[in-house]
């Protein structure tokens, strides 16, 4: 048995209430197809993809509709059989207008996937493997949506010594990764095995927090004998799912500031990504749908749903019963998620949850002066001084913030969560980062 019972963890961090009981036992259900789908051409970090279809053209579910616009870019597939209704600007969840492909679903279609046959990954060279991952449209499904194949492109002098699969899901409310690990343990392990083999990793570790014992058992049972994959347990703590924190927790090593895990010869992937990767290489199915958690006090029928990418949030909410009292809808987790101004935005590849909060459940933190209690310092996994950052940000002293390593901040929100004075620390830091970027852009 490769399961460890003692949980590892990193220093600092916070323990928000988990709120996972709402959905953690609910099996993943399939969301019915919506009438219209909106696919932003840029759902990942990097260059947007180029549309490969024309308005009015019929597309089949799984068909390529967007070609990558460079190496750091992805292929985009249609999540539905239907007709391209429009190509033009639509609202992105972050509020901006971005170029999108809008697809009208064919109500009479059987929604058969246009798959290519399973890929014989074992015979692929590493470069071809990377090309395939790009063609599958795989991005990191934990939230940041970093193109997965870019992570596999190892620079000169680096190798993937350790493969780390992130199953922490430390954000409250979210249980989609949890359900994926329980219900698709085989596929997750299979995906891990594919990547570990292709990258030549010495070992692969799946890190799971101790509040998901069933996931750990399921994964453990799914690991075939004789492989170097193991499941590692972690104490429950936020932000353990941040990859640098996870590496610190599991291996006790710190990724140098401003560097990538690859500098320690580590590649980190999310469990959801592993599932999609296995789907592609075993069944030829690209990333056209994903599991997400719909929960929160404003939802009547919380659920873990398999949702086609591009489904409007409004349809998902209608499906799960959006409460009349809902005052806030959040895409992602409650600590780092994006508040939505409108429900007419699509679910993206990186969307891990949709949460609805009612008036009572929103913490209206009253703001007091910072008393330098130091709670934020004890919360910050990056060992920054958020209190000072906030004070500097208020005074507009960007240069000193840079010297205080504002760039190291991952905006996990632990400081703001813990602040007794209700100072919007992350918000100030985000604004400061934007101002610093702007200043730099102006200078150059």
């Amino acid at each position: 048995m490769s399961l460890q019972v003692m949980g590892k963890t990193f220093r600092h961090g916070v323990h928000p209430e988990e709120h996972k009981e709402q959905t953690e036992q609910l099996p993943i259900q399939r969301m019915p197809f919506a009438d219209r789908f909106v696919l932003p051409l840029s759902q990942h970090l990097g260059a947007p993809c180029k549309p490969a279809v024309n308005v009015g053209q019929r597309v089949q579910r799984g068909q390529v509709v967007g070609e990558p616009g460079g190496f750091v870019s992805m292929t985009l597939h249609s999540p539905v059989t239907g007709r391209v209704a429009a190509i033009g600007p639509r609202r992105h969840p972050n509020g901006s207008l971005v170029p999108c492909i809008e697809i009208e679903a064919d109500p009479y279609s059987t929604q058969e996937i246009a798959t290519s046959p399973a890929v014989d990954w074992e015979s692929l060279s590493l470069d071809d493997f990377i090309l395939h991952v790009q063609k599958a449209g795989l991005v990191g499904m934990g939230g940041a949506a970093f193109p997965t194949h870019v992570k596999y492109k190892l620079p000169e002098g680096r190798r993937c010594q350790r493969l780390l699969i992130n199953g922490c899901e430390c954000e409250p409310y979210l249980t989609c990764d949890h359900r994926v690990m329980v219900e698709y343990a085989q596929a997750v392990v299979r995906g891990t095995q594919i990547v570990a083999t292709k990258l030549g990793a010495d070992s692969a570790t799946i890190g799971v927090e101790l509040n998901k014992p069933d996931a750990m058992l399921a994964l453990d049972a799914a690991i075939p004998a004789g492989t170097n994959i193991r499941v590692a347990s972690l104490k429950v703590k936020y932000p353990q799912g941040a990859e640098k924190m996870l590496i610190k927790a599991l291996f006790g090593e710190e990724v140098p500031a401003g560097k990538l895990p690859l500098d320690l010869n580590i590649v980190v992937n999310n469990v959801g990504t592993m599932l999609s990767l296995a789907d592609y290489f075993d069944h030829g199915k690209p990333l056209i749908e994903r599991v997400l958690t719909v929960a929160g006090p404003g939802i009547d029928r919380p659920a873990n749903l398999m949702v086609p990418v591009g489904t409007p949030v409004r349809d998902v909410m209608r499906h799960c019963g959006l409460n009349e009292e809902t005052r806030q809808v959040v895409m992602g987790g409650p600590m780092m998620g994006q508040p939505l101004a409108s429900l007419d935005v699509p679910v993206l590849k990186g969307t891990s949850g949709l949460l609805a909060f009612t008036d009572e459940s929103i913490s209206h933190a009253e703001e007091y002066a910072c008393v330098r209690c130091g709670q934020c310092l004890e919360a910050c996994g990056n060992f920054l001084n958020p209190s000072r950052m906030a004070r500097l940000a208020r005074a507009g002293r960007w240069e000193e913030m840079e010297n205080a390593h504002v760039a190291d901040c991952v905006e996990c929100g632990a400081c703001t969560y813990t602040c007794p004075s209700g100072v919007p620390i992350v918000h100030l830091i985000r604004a400061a980062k934007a101002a610093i970027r702007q200043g730099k852009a102006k200078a150059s």
Partner: protein
Amino acid sequence: MTKRDPHLLLQAAPFLRRGITTPGLMMDVLLGLAPLVLAAIYFFGLSAVLVLLTCTIGAVATEWALSPARPRGSSIKDGSAILTGIILGLCLPPAIPLWMAFLGGVAAIGLGKLMFGGLGQNLFNPALVGRAFLQAAFPTAITTWSQQGTITEFWGLRLSSWYVPFTHWVPDWLRILLEGVFGPQVDVISSATPLAFIKFGGEAAPFNNLLLGNTAGSLGETCALLIIICGIILAFRRTFDWRIPVSILLTVAAASGIVWLFNHDSPSPLYMLLSGGLLFGAVYMATDPVTSPIAPRGAWIFGIGVGLIVVLIRLWGGLPEGVMYAILLMNAATPLIDRIAQPRAFGRTITGEVSA
């Protein structure tokens, strides 16, 4: 199609809060002070009530009148002014004229806090500023310690409490009125504090008395045992940084211990720890988060600094007690400490370079 849903709020992440607030923290400290207040009332009777009350009124009134926060008085509800008043009251002698106690409260909040913009902006501990102001202004009144009354003399007021402002004199009608209501008034019988005893000749008070508070001294600082218990509870509740009192006490014990080893005439470490305002200062005043370093390493430096200055002043200085000045001096050094003792950022060396 892309219209905004009007009922949706656009508050930024994170959407969860821990639910502990700054007034809550203040309340915690106030509760942690409650046993000391009760002990002060037990030991010193009605005088204690009056002194604590006047200090607090002085502090709160100043906060109300001068605070830049609008609407007027809104900054009182964070509880910090009340806390300052009570802490100041607890480090005053019971026989202090009430008008001075009031003035102390005014100076504490006015000079110590509002000048810098109110809560969280001050650079010196307000209660200590008030106390130091009084000490410098009225050195005799503030070092006139009266022996504690017993419970039977609870109503026995000290005449000096009623001095008319700017004088040390009580009008006859007031004296007659007070005697009519409360019975014969006690005049101050001054009595040296244990520390003054040992400094200016005389023998040490028994440890039992120090521990239980049966000595002369300021209202809140006499009962060592109670302070230790409350301090431990507050430290476990994480109301303040435990490193600060621990490092202060360890430093004082170590430094005075070394001196004591070479010269048995100087007070023993245990005596140093239990006498005077050291425990009270270490637990309730040095730990003021606003004026002490924020990072753990800074807290250690701060505590060691306070401890060393306390020993320096107590053993070689002209004053019997140095806790107040030690904390004020380290308050002044706090920005410098904060500068050199930032936490080591993740993935960096202690100097801030990217770790190899």
